[in-house]
């Protein structure tokens, strides 16, 4: 995993692209080490960070790096609260703070031989799967092929509706499920996962998405005896192990810090993935 520069740094936004219900925010980050897939950064706007709804935001927000190429970092954002809203407003030339890359990403080498990577994403949680697939396939721009000669990578994505399903453009060739049936399979992405595991259990699952989805993935993989790595989300104040605020309970007692022990953890470390529906971020 990459070690972050010690201070937060100012980045200049290079693009703000609408992708259905989401925003892809790109920023020049020439001095940063390349993040490992699954690592994240704490982001905040330099100007007007605060004074929004409920006199927030105050803390930076944690985002998985969706892609990192040519000294430019890509983040996938959904406007769900005062912090994400402010970041979604940023236009090219405006500046934002970034601290990262932080945390432990996906363990690429730990995959058992003979197991095909099976990527499962939900909603805005598809972000780390983009850079993960790039790394697994050797693809530079995520053009959809397996040009790098790596193992075939299956991608399953779930969204609430058609506007969010437009996010799947970041992972061409993925199988899609929507809650309202507007795109692809009518139902949950975990139903696609169950069918995939039924077809061939020689898979290693990497998943990121809302807690109920991750819990369903965890339970399915446990029953099927398929190894799974889960990228967790939790409210964080710092992102580097200082505040002890982002903990989740581990199997056998105690807690792990999502920011430094994760965000990607082995599913076997957890008894279950708890719902985390805090203040709108």
């Amino acid at each position, binding site marked *: 995993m990459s070690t972050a520069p010690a201070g937060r740094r100012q980045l200049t936004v290079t693009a703000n692209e609408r992708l259905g219900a989401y925003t892809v925010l790109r920023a020049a980050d020439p001095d940063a080490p390349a993040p490992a897939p699954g690592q994240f950064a704490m982001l905040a706007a330099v100007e007007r960070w605060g004074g929004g709804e409920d*006199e927030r935001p*105050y803390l930076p927000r944690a985002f998985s790096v969706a892609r990192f190429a040519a000294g430019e970092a890509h983040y996938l954002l959904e406007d769900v609260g005062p912090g994400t809203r402010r970041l979604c407003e940023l236009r090219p030339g405006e500046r934002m703070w970034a601290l990262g890359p932080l945390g432990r990403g996906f363990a690429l080498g730990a995959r058992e031989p003979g197991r095909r990577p099976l990527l499962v994403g939900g909603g805005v949680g598809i972000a780390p799967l983009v850079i993960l697939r790039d790394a697994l396939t050797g693809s530079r721009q995520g053009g959809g092929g397996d040009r790098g000669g790596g193992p075939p990578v299956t991608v399953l994505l779930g969204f609430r509706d058609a506007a969010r399903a437009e996010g799947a453009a970041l992972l061409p060739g993925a199988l899609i499920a929507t809650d309202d049936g507007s795109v692809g399979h009518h139902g949950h992405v975990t139903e696609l996962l169950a069918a995939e595991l039924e077809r061939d259990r020689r898979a290693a699952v990497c998943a990121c998405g809302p807690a109920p989805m991750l819990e369903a993935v965890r339970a399915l993989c446990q029953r099927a005896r398929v190894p799974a790595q889960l990228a967790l989300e*939790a409210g964080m*104040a710092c992102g*580097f192990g200082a*505040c002890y605020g982002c903990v989740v309970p581990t199997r056998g007692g105690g807690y792990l*810090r999502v920011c430094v022990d994760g965000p990607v953890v082995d599913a076997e470390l957890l008894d279950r993935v708890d719902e985390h529906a805090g*203040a709108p971020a």
Partner: protein
Amino acid sequence: MSAPDAGAAVPVAAVEFCGLTLAHPIVNGSGTFDALAARRAFGDELMREFPFAAYVSKTITLAPRAGNPPPRLWEAPAGLINSIGLPNKGLAGYLAEDLPALAALGIGARVPLITNVMGSSAEEIAQLLEACERRPEIAAVELNVSCPNVDTGLDIGADPGELERVLSAVRARTAKPLIVKLTPNTADVAACARGAERGGADAVSLINTLRAMALAPRGGARPWLGGRTGGLSGPAIRAVALAQVAAVAAAVQVPVVGMGGVQSATHARQLLDAGARLVAVGTESFRDPLAGARIARSLRAGARSEAAGHRAGSASV
């Protein structure tokens, strides 16, 4: 802001504090910076300009604590409510594992180490102080008194008499400087500070977080935090901190470590002007891990330009 008498200027370089010489007046608030985790996240660069002139540990208790069940955080207007619950590996784990790991970073030698401890009885506090006394790496002890005394049921830090009694009972257990971290959740913080001073405190630090609560977004009257209530910190409490630091500095002779919502050298300077000897940066380090270094640098630059202004001013008279 200050009288045009350069002799009264706040120190720009080294600061004397309870017999320790600190490179500048900025330290961290206990529990807001984990040097070991930060070293893992940021590598050696962290130690090239360690953000603080002294490093204050998280609160250490006799027995290990897992901390409160999540959720532990709530973003408040211009601030943060936390209900962390003092997770720590316990005194034995701290001494055996953390002290050597901190020493490897130069903390304890290059950067003085202040160990923050909490006990729920005079006997527990005495054991913690004795253990710290035996370790030369520890320069000073900070006592967290924001907890009930299991023997009396009184909040140790919230009652001046109780604070004085507990401190008097344990004071002799260490010759190291003893800083008492006062709680702001009391009727008269200056009276508590005087109680701490009478009990033998070498310094007092304040303010700790203000007791606060948040309700679950869609949960009716259900408290959001796993610990039901938590502590409010950040810019939201800065004005409260200034008032309490000023009141305490006027009430005691011992040095004061001031903290609460400091985000800039201007805020640090205000606490120094209110009578603090040192200033702790807390929640701001969550947003920017090098905030302490930034504030110390800017404080120094401000003091230099102020001194230059004074010289220019007196030359023109």
